[in-house]
């Protein structure tokens, strides 16, 4: 029993750290093995439900010369034990300290995990700032959706991958071998690869009011702007035939099959909808063969068909019945995340329910038609009510409705309309169901303007404004049928600051980590006051980051190109102000620019 294993006895959930799960890789490390740590800056069970982890883990490990191991943020009980016993953060597979890796790759899924990124380096005794890490330390890279604004982390991360990683990650490792693991040379040549951003090759200056004055490269070969990477032939992209099966109970015990990437709806608040364009689908054969492999190699009996809007899959009317007829015998369930409301969704639900009745979630996002037009959420109240009527008649009792508060142009009427919808849904239930067991969850999350969206210039509501809106809803949604859940505006505030943050925030992050901030997305650990002290110590007023931006100012992420043009985003923002909608681009191109920048003409 080694020292690390002795610690497992004292951990509240040792199965987070023991490794050796079915389908995980145990490889021999040889002289020429490239050691890559896939670092997820949150606790094990969160990281293990992330699809990207399973894709890249298997992709890398199928290469003989690469060993990809996982590392997660230790939960606070275990972190304390590690620190007390002087044990550095280690990989799950071989319990090797991170310091011994060649490359550490962080995935950035939400801004509130940034302190965990730094804390993981700290627990590894790796200097936090890129500039303090010499050749003896691993190269620290990062990717994931937050990389579309990499600036707040640019002092800590040597290299960012912008966009989809399945191809470029292998190109990077090939380069790393080619330059004989020479870090400087590696970074210099990496910028020649599409989708690679090396922050130290660029300098930023600020004017006195905190706006960006200039953004210039200091290394000639570095590109002026960094275009994202996308997979063009998505039907043939690498997809794993197995997934690691955690011992620990995770949120969902199911395999995931990604059926397409991108979304055509054009919701104006949605970063994913903008940055994952264009839509690229997999064929039914590919999907079914993935599902069959994954179910066989997992022992799970549920498969989730994943995408940003699953029922928008072109051949959904063939896919679902065909999968259901394949699996009913073996009691396999199909789950459909991200449902959009339309008549077809009800037909599909009727089919799926034959196997297993899952909870249903719908996202009208806003209370009034006016505001839904502003955000371009193509859903009408009519759609919602017809759908509700059908599902209650079919016997569902549990429904979740997702809304956002703090949206641009929002008024008190828009908030009140959310509770009106809830009451109307309750009426529909009472008329259409013989039972009396309605469980209606109304969830209100706080809108945070995201880079690369039409709302990237908009002001974010203050904590007080958001709290007032929540209180208004809380007072109106009483009764045992309703379950009102809402987000803490304090965390949305911090998310907003980092979401549209710039390089100056690196100093704040350093201070915050010094003060022990971590797991900021976890309500029971998040400390708003410690954060505010950190801002104060650095002399930065965080409110500034929530302000309205001008169209002509340089935004911190302007050098990153997601393919959608700035003109399109401005045009969409103007249309929002006038309550004008934009059609789903499956019904005709809306000229966002992604086709000319990335695919040479057609989506």
């Amino acid at each position, binding site marked *: *029993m080694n020292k690390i294993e002795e610690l497992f006895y004292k951990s509240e959930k*040792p199965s987070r750290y023991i490794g050796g799960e079915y389908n995980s890789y145990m490889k021999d490390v040889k002289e020429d093995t490239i050691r890559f740590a896939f670092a997820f800056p949150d606790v094990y069970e969160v990281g293990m439900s992330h699809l990207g982890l399973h894709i890249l883990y298997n992709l890398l490990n199928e290469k003989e010369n690469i060993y990809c191991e996982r590392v997660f943020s230790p939960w606070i009980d275990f972190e304390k034990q590690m620190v007390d016993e002087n044990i550095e953060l280690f990989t799950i597979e071989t319990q090797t300290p991170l310091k011994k890796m060649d490359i550490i790759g962080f995935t950035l899924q939400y801004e509130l995990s940034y302190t965990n990124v730094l804390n993981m380096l700290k627990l590894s005794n790796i200097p936090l700032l890129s500039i303090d890490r010499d050749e003896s330390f691993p190269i620290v890279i990062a990717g994931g959706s937050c990389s579309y604004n990499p600036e707040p982390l640019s002092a800590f991360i040597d290299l960012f991958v912008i966009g989809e990683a399945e191809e470029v990650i292998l190109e990077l490792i090939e380069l790393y071998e080619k330059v004989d693991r020479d870090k400087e040379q590696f970074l210099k040549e990496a910028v020649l690869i599409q989708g690679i951003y090396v922050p130290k090759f660029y300098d930023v200056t600020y004017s006195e009011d905190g706006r960006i004055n200039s953004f210039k490269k200091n290394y000639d070969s570095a590109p002026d702007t960094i275009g994202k990477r996308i997979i063009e032939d998505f039907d043939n992209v690498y997809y794993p035939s197995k997934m690691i099966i955690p011992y620990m*109970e995770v949120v969902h015990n199911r395999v995931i099959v990604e059926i397409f990437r991108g979304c055509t709806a054009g919701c104006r608040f949605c970063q994913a909808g903008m940055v994952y364009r264009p839509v690229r689908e997999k064929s039914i054969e590919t999907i079914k063969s993935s599902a069959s492999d994954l179910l066989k190699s997992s022992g799970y009996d549920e498969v989730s068909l994943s995408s940003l809007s699953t029922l928008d899959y072109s051949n959904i009317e063939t896919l679902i019945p065909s999968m259901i007829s394949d699996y009913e015998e073996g009691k396999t369930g199909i789950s459909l995340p991200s449902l959009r409301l339309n008549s077809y969704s009800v037909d599909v639900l009727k089919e799926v329910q034959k196997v297993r009745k899952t909870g249903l979630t719908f996202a009208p996002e806003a209370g009034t038609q006016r505001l839904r037009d502003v955000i371009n959420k193509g859903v009408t109240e009519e759609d919602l009510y017809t759908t509700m009527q059908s599902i209650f008649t079919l016997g569902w009792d549990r429904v979740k409705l997702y809304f956002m508060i703090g949206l641009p142009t929002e008024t008190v009427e828009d908030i009140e309309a959310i509770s009106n919808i809830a009451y109307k849904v309750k009426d529909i239930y009472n008329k259409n169901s013989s039972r009396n067991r309605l469980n209606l969850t109304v969830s209100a999350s706080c809108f945070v303007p995201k880079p690369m969206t039409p709302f990237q210039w908009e002001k974010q509501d203050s904590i007080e404004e958001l709290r007032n809106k929540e209180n208004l809803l809380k007072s109106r949604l009483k009764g045992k049928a309703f379950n009102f859940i809402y987000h803490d505006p304090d965390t949305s505030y911090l998310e907003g600051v980092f979401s549209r943050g710039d390089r100056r925030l690196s100093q704040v992050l350093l201070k915050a980590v010094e003060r022990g901030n971590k797991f900021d997305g976890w309500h029971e650990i998040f400390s708003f006051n410690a954060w505010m002290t950190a801002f104060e110590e650095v002399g930065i007023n965080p409110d500034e980051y929530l302000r309205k931006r001008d169209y002509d100012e340089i935004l911190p992420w302007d050098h990153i190109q997601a393919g959608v043009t700035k003109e399109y985003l401005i045009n969409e923002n103007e249309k929002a102000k006038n309550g004008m909608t934009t059609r789903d681009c499956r019904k005709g191109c809306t000229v966002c620019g992604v086709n000319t920048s990335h695919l040479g003409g057609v989506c």
Partner: protein
Amino acid sequence: MPILRIKAQKSGRLRFLSHLETQNMLERSMKRADVPLKYSNGFNPHPNISFAAPLPVGSLSEYEIIDIDVIDEFEINQLLKDQIDFFPKDFYLMEGYFIENDDSLMSQVAAGDYLIKINENMDGNLIKESIDNFLSKDEVLILKRTKKGKRKEVDIRSQVKVLKYLDEEKLIFMKLDAGSVSNLKPLVLMDQIIKIPHEKMDVIRTKLYKEKEGLLIELF
């Protein structure tokens, strides 16, 4: 419907799995191996898998007895032969056979054998003395938490059937009450004998017994 009864070994880091995690691991492994599991009826159908006695987190076992409801009998030897493809490497199926209806395993368990290996330099004589001291007592009362969270005084001396130090192997052997009527966990007993941090000991379950006409008979 037949029941598959198996004996299995749990070793290595799998010792850190909870009872529920072990159950889930076994269910998934069985499904991967295409064992024809029988599902329960009802709203949320699930396979029926029951362990004779839950193993405390941190303990190893050479004697996990498990009943699994199946639809049909099948070639068990094939499963034993191919298991490495479907099970995590530290869970090893040793033997199996089919039975028809039987009382639930859990209700049959009466006693268990355990070996304790101490991974720290320790004077064997000191351990022996401590054991003798414990055995010389008529009664050793400790406070135990009941399932409802209350505290209850229990005499653990009467739950110990055999307790001895094996000089040559440097192991402690114990035969203790187990099951739903009277149950004593090995480390609870160890704490009363001599103070050693739990992470410095390996606990290995080596057998389980049922009682028949006053005699202990191996469960499997």
